Protein backbone atom coordinates (compact mmCIF):
# COMPACT_ATOMS: atom_id res chain seq x y z
CA UNK A 1 0.00 0.00 0.00
CA UNK A 2 1.22 3.51 -0.75
CA UNK A 3 0.12 6.95 0.37
CA UNK A 4 1.29 10.38 -0.55
CA UNK A 5 2.79 12.08 2.43
CA UNK A 6 2.57 15.77 3.23
CA UNK A 7 4.90 16.28 6.20
CA UNK A 8 4.50 20.02 6.72
CA UNK A 9 7.11 22.53 7.89
CA UNK A 10 7.19 21.54 11.57
CA UNK A 11 8.36 18.04 10.77
CA UNK A 12 11.57 19.45 9.32
CA UNK A 13 12.37 21.35 12.50
CA UNK A 14 10.72 21.25 15.89
CA UNK A 15 8.98 17.95 15.20
CA UNK A 16 11.78 16.06 13.48
CA UNK A 17 11.45 13.47 16.25
CA UNK A 18 7.86 12.93 15.09
CA UNK A 19 9.06 12.63 11.48
CA UNK A 20 11.63 10.00 12.37
CA UNK A 21 9.18 7.93 14.38
CA UNK A 22 6.62 8.09 11.56
CA UNK A 23 9.14 6.77 9.06
CA UNK A 24 10.01 3.93 11.41
CA UNK A 25 6.41 2.97 12.18
CA UNK A 26 5.27 3.00 8.57
CA UNK A 27 8.25 0.87 7.61
CA UNK A 28 7.21 -1.60 10.28
CA UNK A 29 3.66 -1.61 8.96
CA UNK A 30 4.87 -2.08 5.41
CA UNK A 31 3.16 1.03 4.06
CA UNK A 32 4.98 3.26 1.59
CA UNK A 33 4.89 6.95 2.36
CA UNK A 34 5.75 8.86 -0.80
CA UNK A 35 6.62 12.43 0.05
CA UNK A 36 4.85 14.95 -2.20
CA UNK A 37 7.51 16.28 -4.53
CA UNK A 38 8.68 19.79 -3.63
CA UNK A 39 5.75 20.39 -1.28
CA UNK A 40 5.33 23.89 0.09
CA UNK A 41 3.82 25.38 3.25
CA UNK A 42 0.02 25.20 3.65
CA UNK A 43 -0.14 28.80 4.94
CA UNK A 44 -1.29 27.66 8.37
CA UNK A 45 -3.15 30.10 10.63
CA UNK A 46 -1.48 33.12 9.03
CA UNK A 47 -2.90 32.72 5.53
CA UNK A 48 -6.30 31.83 6.95
CA UNK A 49 -6.30 34.88 9.23
CA UNK A 50 -5.12 37.47 6.75
CA UNK A 51 -6.10 36.22 3.33
CA UNK A 52 -8.67 33.51 2.78
CA UNK A 53 -7.79 33.22 -0.90
CA UNK A 54 -4.17 32.42 -0.10
CA UNK A 55 -5.36 29.87 2.44
CA UNK A 56 -6.89 27.94 -0.45
CA UNK A 57 -4.23 28.67 -3.08
CA UNK A 58 -1.24 27.63 -0.97
CA UNK A 59 -2.55 24.16 -0.11
CA UNK A 60 -3.86 23.82 -3.67
CA UNK A 61 -0.31 23.70 -5.02
CA UNK A 62 0.28 20.61 -2.88
CA UNK A 63 -3.08 19.09 -3.72
CA UNK A 64 -2.24 19.48 -7.41
CA UNK A 65 1.08 17.67 -6.94
CA UNK A 66 -0.62 14.92 -4.93
CA UNK A 67 -3.34 14.59 -7.56
CA UNK A 68 -0.70 13.74 -10.14
CA UNK A 69 0.48 10.90 -7.94
CA UNK A 70 -3.03 9.49 -7.74
CA UNK A 71 -2.67 8.44 -4.10
CA UNK A 72 -4.58 9.42 -0.98
CA UNK A 73 -2.81 12.00 1.16
CA UNK A 74 -1.93 11.38 4.75
CA UNK A 75 -0.98 14.31 6.94
CA UNK A 76 0.61 13.98 10.36
CA UNK A 77 0.02 17.62 11.35
CA UNK A 78 -3.40 18.71 12.57
CA UNK A 79 -3.07 22.17 11.09
CA UNK A 80 -1.91 21.02 7.66
CA UNK A 81 -4.65 18.40 7.63
CA UNK A 82 -7.27 21.02 8.38
CA UNK A 83 -5.96 23.42 5.72
CA UNK A 84 -5.65 20.72 3.05
CA UNK A 85 -9.18 19.48 3.73
CA UNK A 86 -10.55 23.00 3.73
CA UNK A 87 -8.83 23.85 0.44
CA UNK A 88 -10.00 20.62 -1.14
CA UNK A 89 -13.59 21.35 -0.17
CA UNK A 90 -13.40 24.92 -1.51
CA UNK A 91 -11.91 23.68 -4.77
CA UNK A 92 -14.68 21.11 -5.13
CA UNK A 93 -17.18 23.90 -4.69
CA UNK A 94 -15.19 26.03 -7.12
CA UNK A 95 -15.28 28.93 -4.68
CA UNK A 96 -11.79 30.18 -5.52
CA UNK A 97 -9.72 30.64 -8.65
CA UNK A 98 -6.29 29.08 -8.53
CA UNK A 99 -3.62 28.69 -11.19
CA UNK A 100 -3.35 24.90 -10.98
CA UNK A 101 -5.42 22.10 -12.38
CA UNK A 102 -6.43 20.17 -9.31
CA UNK A 103 -8.03 16.80 -9.47
CA UNK A 104 -9.61 16.45 -6.04
CA UNK A 105 -10.72 12.84 -6.34
CA UNK A 106 -8.57 11.58 -3.51
CA UNK A 107 -8.95 11.48 0.22
CA UNK A 108 -7.01 13.63 2.68
CA UNK A 109 -6.55 11.64 5.89
CA UNK A 110 -5.18 12.72 9.15
CA UNK A 111 -2.65 10.13 10.19
CA UNK A 112 -4.46 9.06 13.35
CA UNK A 113 -7.74 8.35 11.61
CA UNK A 114 -6.00 6.43 8.89
CA UNK A 115 -4.29 4.23 11.46
CA UNK A 116 -7.42 3.84 13.59
CA UNK A 117 -9.42 2.12 10.85
CA UNK A 118 -10.36 -1.42 11.99
CA UNK A 119 -8.07 -3.24 9.56
CA UNK A 120 -5.14 -0.99 10.40
CA UNK A 121 -5.72 -1.52 14.12
CA UNK A 122 -5.60 -5.27 13.52
CA UNK A 123 -2.25 -4.82 11.71
CA UNK A 124 -0.96 -2.73 14.59
CA UNK A 125 -1.99 -5.31 17.18
CA UNK A 126 -0.22 -8.01 15.22
CA UNK A 127 3.05 -6.11 15.35
CA UNK A 128 3.09 -5.39 19.04
CA UNK A 129 6.02 -7.21 20.63
CA UNK A 130 5.89 -5.64 24.07
CA UNK A 131 2.58 -4.07 25.06
CA UNK A 132 2.89 -0.80 26.94
CA UNK A 133 0.92 -2.21 29.86
CA UNK A 134 0.91 -0.07 33.02
CA UNK A 135 1.58 3.13 31.08
CA UNK A 136 -1.28 5.45 32.01
CA UNK A 137 -1.96 7.92 29.22
CA UNK A 138 -4.43 10.56 28.19
CA UNK A 139 -4.81 11.38 24.51
CA UNK A 140 -4.91 15.02 23.52
CA UNK A 141 -6.30 15.88 20.07
CA UNK A 142 -6.31 19.67 20.07
CA UNK A 143 -8.68 21.62 17.85
CA UNK A 144 -7.62 21.64 14.23
CA UNK A 145 -7.79 17.91 13.68
CA UNK A 146 -11.38 17.57 14.89
CA UNK A 147 -13.06 20.95 14.33
CA UNK A 148 -15.00 22.13 12.50
CA UNK A 149 -16.60 18.73 11.86
CA UNK A 150 -17.89 19.93 8.49
CA UNK A 151 -14.27 20.13 7.30
CA UNK A 152 -12.52 17.43 9.30
CA UNK A 153 -15.22 14.79 8.97
CA UNK A 154 -15.06 13.85 12.65
CA UNK A 155 -18.53 12.89 13.82
CA UNK A 156 -17.32 12.18 17.35
CA UNK A 157 -15.76 15.62 17.68
CA UNK A 158 -16.81 15.93 21.31
CA UNK A 159 -15.04 12.78 22.30
CA UNK A 160 -12.69 11.73 19.49
CA UNK A 161 -11.36 8.18 19.66
CA UNK A 162 -8.65 7.69 17.05
CA UNK A 163 -5.61 8.17 19.31
CA UNK A 164 -7.36 6.32 22.12
CA UNK A 165 -7.92 3.32 19.85
CA UNK A 166 -4.30 3.29 18.66
CA UNK A 167 -2.94 3.54 22.19
CA UNK A 168 -5.27 0.78 23.27
CA UNK A 169 -4.00 -1.37 20.39
CA UNK A 170 -0.42 -1.04 21.61
CA UNK A 171 -1.51 -2.06 25.09
CA UNK A 172 -1.31 1.27 26.92
CA UNK A 173 -3.91 2.29 29.49
CA UNK A 174 -6.00 5.09 28.13
CA UNK A 175 -7.82 7.35 30.55
CA UNK A 176 -10.93 9.22 29.67
CA UNK A 177 -10.91 12.97 30.27
CA UNK A 178 -12.82 15.96 29.05
CA UNK A 179 -9.99 18.10 27.70
CA UNK A 180 -9.26 16.05 24.59
CA UNK A 181 -10.04 18.80 22.15
CA UNK A 182 -9.82 21.94 24.27
CA UNK A 183 -7.64 24.48 22.51
CA UNK A 184 -4.07 24.86 23.86
CA UNK A 185 -3.70 28.36 22.40
CA UNK A 186 -0.53 27.60 20.44
CA UNK A 187 -1.50 29.89 17.58
CA UNK A 188 -1.22 33.05 19.66
CA UNK A 189 1.63 31.90 21.88
CA UNK A 190 3.99 34.29 20.13
CA UNK A 191 1.99 37.48 20.42
CA UNK A 192 0.05 36.90 23.64
CA UNK A 193 2.13 34.54 25.68
CA UNK A 194 0.08 34.82 28.87
CA UNK A 195 -3.09 33.59 27.18
CA UNK A 196 -1.25 30.60 25.77
CA UNK A 197 0.30 29.88 29.17
CA UNK A 198 -3.09 29.91 30.89
CA UNK A 199 -4.75 27.59 28.38
CA UNK A 200 -1.85 25.15 28.15
CA UNK A 201 -1.26 24.99 31.88
CA UNK A 202 -4.89 24.14 32.42
CA UNK A 203 -4.59 21.18 30.09
CA UNK A 204 -1.44 19.97 31.84
CA UNK A 205 -3.14 20.32 35.24
CA UNK A 206 -6.18 18.38 34.10
CA UNK A 207 -4.06 15.62 32.62
CA UNK A 208 -2.18 15.20 35.89
CA UNK A 209 -5.44 15.36 37.81
CA UNK A 210 -6.86 12.54 35.67
CA UNK A 211 -4.01 10.37 36.89
CA UNK A 212 -2.13 10.22 33.61
CA UNK A 213 1.60 9.68 33.53
CA UNK A 214 2.01 10.88 29.98
CA UNK A 215 0.13 12.80 27.31
CA UNK A 216 -0.16 11.40 23.81
CA UNK A 217 -0.54 13.80 20.89
CA UNK A 218 -0.42 13.87 17.13
CA UNK A 219 -0.08 17.62 16.53
CA UNK A 220 3.42 19.16 16.36
CA UNK A 221 2.20 22.52 17.65
CA UNK A 222 0.40 20.93 20.61
CA UNK A 223 3.48 18.88 21.42
CA UNK A 224 5.83 21.85 21.31
CA UNK A 225 3.42 23.86 23.38
CA UNK A 226 2.68 21.26 26.08
CA UNK A 227 6.33 20.27 26.26
CA UNK A 228 7.85 23.76 26.56
CA UNK A 229 5.30 25.99 28.28
CA UNK A 230 6.58 27.52 31.55
CA UNK A 231 4.92 25.87 34.55
CA UNK A 232 4.21 27.64 37.78
CA UNK A 233 6.57 26.61 40.56
CA UNK A 234 5.62 23.33 42.13
CA UNK A 235 3.39 22.11 39.29
CA UNK A 236 4.78 18.98 37.69
CA UNK A 237 5.31 18.19 34.05
CA UNK A 238 4.26 15.14 32.12
CA UNK A 239 6.17 13.74 29.16
CA UNK A 240 4.35 14.51 25.91
CA UNK A 241 4.69 11.73 23.34
CA UNK A 242 3.84 11.60 19.70
CA UNK A 243 1.67 8.52 19.27
CA UNK A 244 4.08 7.10 16.72
CA UNK A 245 6.93 7.19 19.24
CA UNK A 246 4.95 4.92 21.55
CA UNK A 247 3.86 2.64 18.69
CA UNK A 248 7.47 2.09 17.76
CA UNK A 249 8.35 1.38 21.37
CA UNK A 250 5.76 -1.39 21.41
CA UNK A 251 6.86 -2.74 18.01
CA UNK A 252 10.59 -2.78 18.66
CA UNK A 253 11.38 -2.58 22.35
CA UNK A 254 15.08 -3.05 21.86
CA UNK A 255 15.63 -0.58 19.04
CA UNK A 256 17.45 2.64 19.78
CA UNK A 257 14.86 5.43 19.82
CA UNK A 258 17.04 8.52 19.60
CA UNK A 259 14.04 10.81 19.29
CA UNK A 260 13.22 10.70 23.00
CA UNK A 261 16.26 12.91 23.52
CA UNK A 262 14.54 15.66 21.56
CA UNK A 263 11.91 16.11 24.29
CA UNK A 264 12.32 18.93 26.77
CA UNK A 265 10.48 16.95 29.44
CA UNK A 266 12.65 13.86 29.56
CA UNK A 267 10.42 10.78 29.18
CA UNK A 268 13.16 8.25 29.92
CA UNK A 269 12.77 8.12 33.72
CA UNK A 270 9.08 7.25 33.29
CA UNK A 271 9.73 4.64 30.60
CA UNK A 272 12.44 3.26 32.81
CA UNK A 273 10.23 2.75 35.86
CA UNK A 274 7.71 1.04 33.60
CA UNK A 275 10.42 -1.27 32.36
CA UNK A 276 9.93 -0.08 28.80
CA UNK A 277 13.50 1.02 28.14
CA UNK A 278 16.75 -0.40 29.42
CA UNK A 279 18.26 1.68 32.19
Amino acid at each position, binding site marked *: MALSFYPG*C*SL*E*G*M*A*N*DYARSITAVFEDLGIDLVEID*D*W*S*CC*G*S*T*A*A*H*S*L*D*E*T*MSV*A*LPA*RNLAAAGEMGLDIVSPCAMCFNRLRYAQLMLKRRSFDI*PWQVDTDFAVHDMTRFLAAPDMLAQIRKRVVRPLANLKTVCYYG*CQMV*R*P*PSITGYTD*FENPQTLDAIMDAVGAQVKDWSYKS*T*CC*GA*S*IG*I*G*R*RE*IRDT*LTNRILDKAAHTGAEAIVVSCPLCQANLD*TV*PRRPGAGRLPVFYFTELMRLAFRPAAEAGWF*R*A*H*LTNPLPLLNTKGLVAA
Partner: protein
Amino acid sequence: MADTQPSGPNPAVADQFAGRRLIERGHSRFLEHTQNATGIDIGACYQCERCTNACPVARYMDIKPHQVIRYTQLGWREALMHSTTIWVCLSCEMCTTYCPNAVDVAGLINHLRNTAARLPIRPAEKELAQFHQIFLEELRRFGRVNELWLMATFNRRPAILKKKLKDGSLKEDLSLGFNLWRRGRLKLLPHRSRGIGEIRKLYRHRRGESD
Protein backbone atom coordinates in the same frame (compact mmCIF):
# COMPACT_ATOMS: atom_id res chain seq x y z
CA MET B 1 -15.65 26.64 31.00
CA ALA B 2 -17.68 29.74 31.62
CA ASP B 3 -14.68 32.01 31.48
CA THR B 4 -16.68 34.95 30.37
CA GLN B 5 -16.26 37.40 33.18
CA PRO B 6 -14.77 40.51 31.63
CA SER B 7 -11.17 41.08 32.63
CA GLY B 8 -12.08 44.72 33.25
CA PRO B 9 -12.43 47.13 30.39
CA ASN B 10 -9.18 47.90 28.66
CA PRO B 11 -8.86 51.68 29.20
CA ALA B 12 -7.77 52.29 25.62
CA VAL B 13 -10.78 50.43 24.34
CA ALA B 14 -13.11 52.07 26.84
CA ASP B 15 -11.87 55.42 25.60
CA GLN B 16 -12.35 54.47 22.06
CA PHE B 17 -15.87 53.32 22.82
CA ALA B 18 -16.83 56.36 24.83
CA GLY B 19 -19.82 57.66 23.00
CA ARG B 20 -19.38 55.25 20.13
CA ARG B 21 -22.50 53.36 20.92
CA LEU B 22 -24.44 56.56 20.43
CA ILE B 23 -22.39 57.92 17.58
CA GLU B 24 -21.85 54.85 15.48
CA ARG B 25 -25.23 54.58 13.87
CA GLY B 26 -24.10 51.62 11.91
CA HIS B 27 -23.47 50.99 8.26
CA SER B 28 -26.87 50.08 6.98
CA ARG B 29 -25.54 47.63 4.39
CA PHE B 30 -22.85 46.00 6.54
CA LEU B 31 -24.98 43.04 7.55
CA GLU B 32 -26.05 42.40 3.99
CA HIS B 33 -22.52 42.73 2.62
CA THR B 34 -21.11 40.42 5.25
CA GLN B 35 -23.79 37.80 4.69
CA ASN B 36 -23.21 37.93 0.95
CA ALA B 37 -19.45 37.71 1.25
CA THR B 38 -19.43 34.80 3.68
CA GLY B 39 -22.66 32.93 3.12
CA ILE B 40 -23.17 32.95 6.90
CA ASP B 41 -26.76 33.35 8.10
CA ILE B 42 -26.06 36.02 10.70
CA GLY B 43 -29.75 36.70 11.20
CA ALA B 44 -30.27 33.21 12.59
CA CYS B 45 -28.63 34.10 15.90
CA TYR B 46 -30.95 34.40 18.91
CA GLN B 47 -28.26 35.62 21.34
CA CYS B 48 -28.16 32.53 23.54
CA GLU B 49 -24.46 33.18 24.22
CA ARG B 50 -23.53 29.56 23.83
CA CYS B 51 -20.68 30.58 21.51
CA THR B 52 -19.24 32.87 24.15
CA ASN B 53 -19.56 30.22 26.83
CA ALA B 54 -17.73 27.72 24.65
CA CYS B 55 -14.95 30.14 23.75
CA PRO B 56 -11.68 29.52 25.62
CA VAL B 57 -10.51 33.13 25.25
CA ALA B 58 -13.72 35.15 25.58
CA ARG B 59 -12.40 36.76 28.76
CA TYR B 60 -9.57 38.33 26.79
CA MET B 61 -11.88 39.81 24.16
CA ASP B 62 -13.40 43.28 24.31
CA ILE B 63 -16.35 42.25 22.14
CA LYS B 64 -17.52 38.73 23.04
CA PRO B 65 -18.37 36.26 20.26
CA HIS B 66 -22.16 36.63 20.62
CA GLN B 67 -21.71 40.40 20.62
CA VAL B 68 -19.74 40.16 17.39
CA ILE B 69 -22.89 38.75 15.84
CA ARG B 70 -25.03 41.51 17.31
CA TYR B 71 -22.60 44.25 16.26
CA THR B 72 -22.64 42.87 12.75
CA GLN B 73 -26.42 42.93 12.68
CA LEU B 74 -26.33 46.55 13.85
CA GLY B 75 -23.67 47.50 11.33
CA TRP B 76 -21.14 48.54 13.96
CA ARG B 77 -18.27 47.89 11.63
CA GLU B 78 -15.72 50.32 13.06
CA ALA B 79 -15.96 48.91 16.57
CA LEU B 80 -15.40 45.42 15.17
CA MET B 81 -12.44 46.49 13.04
CA HIS B 82 -10.76 48.03 16.09
CA SER B 83 -11.56 45.20 18.47
CA THR B 84 -9.05 42.92 20.16
CA THR B 85 -11.48 40.07 19.48
CA ILE B 86 -10.61 39.63 15.83
CA TRP B 87 -6.93 39.09 16.72
CA VAL B 88 -7.32 37.18 19.98
CA CYS B 89 -9.67 34.59 18.43
CA LEU B 90 -7.79 31.30 18.03
CA SER B 91 -9.93 29.91 15.21
CA CYS B 92 -10.50 26.93 17.48
CA GLU B 93 -14.04 26.61 16.09
CA MET B 94 -15.70 25.87 19.44
CA CYS B 95 -18.27 28.62 18.88
CA THR B 96 -19.30 27.43 15.43
CA THR B 97 -19.42 23.81 16.52
CA TYR B 98 -21.74 24.50 19.44
CA CYS B 99 -24.05 27.14 18.01
CA PRO B 100 -27.59 25.72 18.08
CA ASN B 101 -28.44 27.71 14.95
CA ALA B 102 -25.37 26.71 12.97
CA VAL B 103 -24.13 30.28 12.80
CA ASP B 104 -20.50 30.14 11.71
CA VAL B 105 -19.21 32.52 14.37
CA ALA B 106 -15.56 31.55 13.85
CA GLY B 107 -15.96 32.05 10.10
CA LEU B 108 -17.43 35.50 10.66
CA ILE B 109 -14.62 36.53 13.01
CA ASN B 110 -12.08 35.27 10.51
CA HIS B 111 -13.76 37.23 7.75
CA LEU B 112 -13.60 40.37 9.90
CA ARG B 113 -9.92 39.71 10.59
CA ASN B 114 -9.29 39.33 6.84
CA THR B 115 -11.11 42.62 6.26
CA ALA B 116 -9.20 44.47 8.98
CA ALA B 117 -5.90 43.19 7.58
CA ARG B 118 -6.62 44.99 4.30
CA LEU B 119 -7.51 48.30 5.95
CA PRO B 120 -5.04 50.98 6.92
CA ILE B 121 -5.89 50.77 10.61
CA ARG B 122 -3.72 49.98 13.56
CA PRO B 123 -4.69 46.51 14.79
CA ALA B 124 -5.72 46.41 18.47
CA GLU B 125 -3.33 43.49 18.94
CA LYS B 126 -0.35 44.64 16.95
CA GLU B 127 1.97 41.76 17.69
CA LEU B 128 -0.57 39.12 16.82
CA ALA B 129 -1.25 40.81 13.48
CA GLN B 130 2.46 41.25 12.81
CA PHE B 131 3.23 37.64 13.55
CA HIS B 132 0.78 36.50 10.86
CA GLN B 133 2.31 38.95 8.40
CA ILE B 134 5.84 37.83 9.11
CA PHE B 135 4.80 34.21 8.72
CA LEU B 136 3.44 34.93 5.24
CA GLU B 137 6.55 36.92 4.38
CA GLU B 138 8.81 33.99 5.36
CA LEU B 139 6.63 31.71 3.29
CA ARG B 140 7.10 34.03 0.31
CA ARG B 141 10.87 33.99 0.77
CA PHE B 142 11.34 30.25 0.96
CA GLY B 143 8.13 28.38 0.13
CA ARG B 144 8.37 26.63 3.47
CA VAL B 145 8.55 28.18 6.90
CA ASN B 146 11.54 27.58 9.12
CA GLU B 147 10.61 28.07 12.78
CA LEU B 148 14.00 29.45 13.78
CA TRP B 149 14.09 32.02 10.99
CA LEU B 150 10.48 32.93 11.64
CA MET B 151 11.19 33.70 15.28
CA ALA B 152 14.41 35.53 14.44
CA THR B 153 12.65 37.74 11.89
CA PHE B 154 9.86 38.43 14.37
CA ASN B 155 12.21 39.27 17.24
CA ARG B 156 14.32 41.52 15.02
CA ARG B 157 11.47 43.99 14.57
CA PRO B 158 12.62 47.06 16.54
CA ALA B 159 9.39 47.51 18.50
CA ILE B 160 9.25 43.85 19.41
CA LEU B 161 12.93 43.67 20.28
CA LYS B 162 12.60 46.66 22.55
CA LYS B 163 9.60 45.22 24.36
CA LYS B 164 11.16 41.79 24.74
CA LEU B 165 14.39 43.25 26.11
CA LYS B 166 12.43 45.23 28.62
CA ASP B 167 10.17 42.47 29.94
CA GLY B 168 12.87 39.81 29.88
CA SER B 169 11.07 37.57 27.41
CA LEU B 170 13.97 37.77 24.95
CA LYS B 171 16.14 36.02 27.50
CA GLU B 172 13.47 33.33 27.91
CA ASP B 173 13.29 32.94 24.13
CA LEU B 174 17.04 32.56 23.84
CA SER B 175 17.32 30.02 26.62
CA LEU B 176 14.43 28.00 25.16
CA GLY B 177 16.05 28.27 21.74
CA PHE B 178 19.35 27.03 23.11
CA ASN B 179 17.64 24.10 24.81
CA LEU B 180 15.84 23.17 21.62
CA TRP B 181 19.01 23.47 19.57
CA ARG B 182 20.87 21.19 21.98
CA ARG B 183 18.16 18.62 21.49
CA GLY B 184 18.38 18.85 17.74
CA ARG B 185 14.99 20.44 17.26
CA LEU B 186 16.03 23.52 15.30
CA LYS B 187 16.72 23.39 11.62
CA LEU B 188 19.38 26.02 11.18
CA LEU B 189 19.08 26.67 7.45
CA PRO B 190 15.75 27.14 5.71
CA HIS B 191 14.83 24.95 2.78
CA ARG B 192 13.98 26.81 -0.40
CA SER B 193 11.25 25.28 -2.53
CA ARG B 194 12.06 24.69 -6.18
CA GLY B 195 8.58 25.99 -6.90
CA ILE B 196 9.26 29.32 -5.21
CA GLY B 197 8.61 31.14 -8.49
CA GLU B 198 5.02 29.87 -8.62
CA ILE B 199 4.47 30.79 -4.99
CA ARG B 200 5.78 34.32 -5.42
CA LYS B 201 3.56 34.70 -8.45
CA LEU B 202 0.56 33.89 -6.25
CA TYR B 203 1.57 36.68 -3.92
CA ARG B 204 2.03 39.15 -6.78
CA HIS B 205 -1.40 38.30 -8.18
CA ARG B 206 -2.95 38.79 -4.78
CA ARG B 207 -1.39 42.23 -4.59
CA GLY B 208 -2.77 43.07 -7.98
CA GLU B 209 0.64 43.11 -9.63
CA SER B 210 1.27 41.50 -12.99
CA ASP B 211 3.67 38.60 -13.63
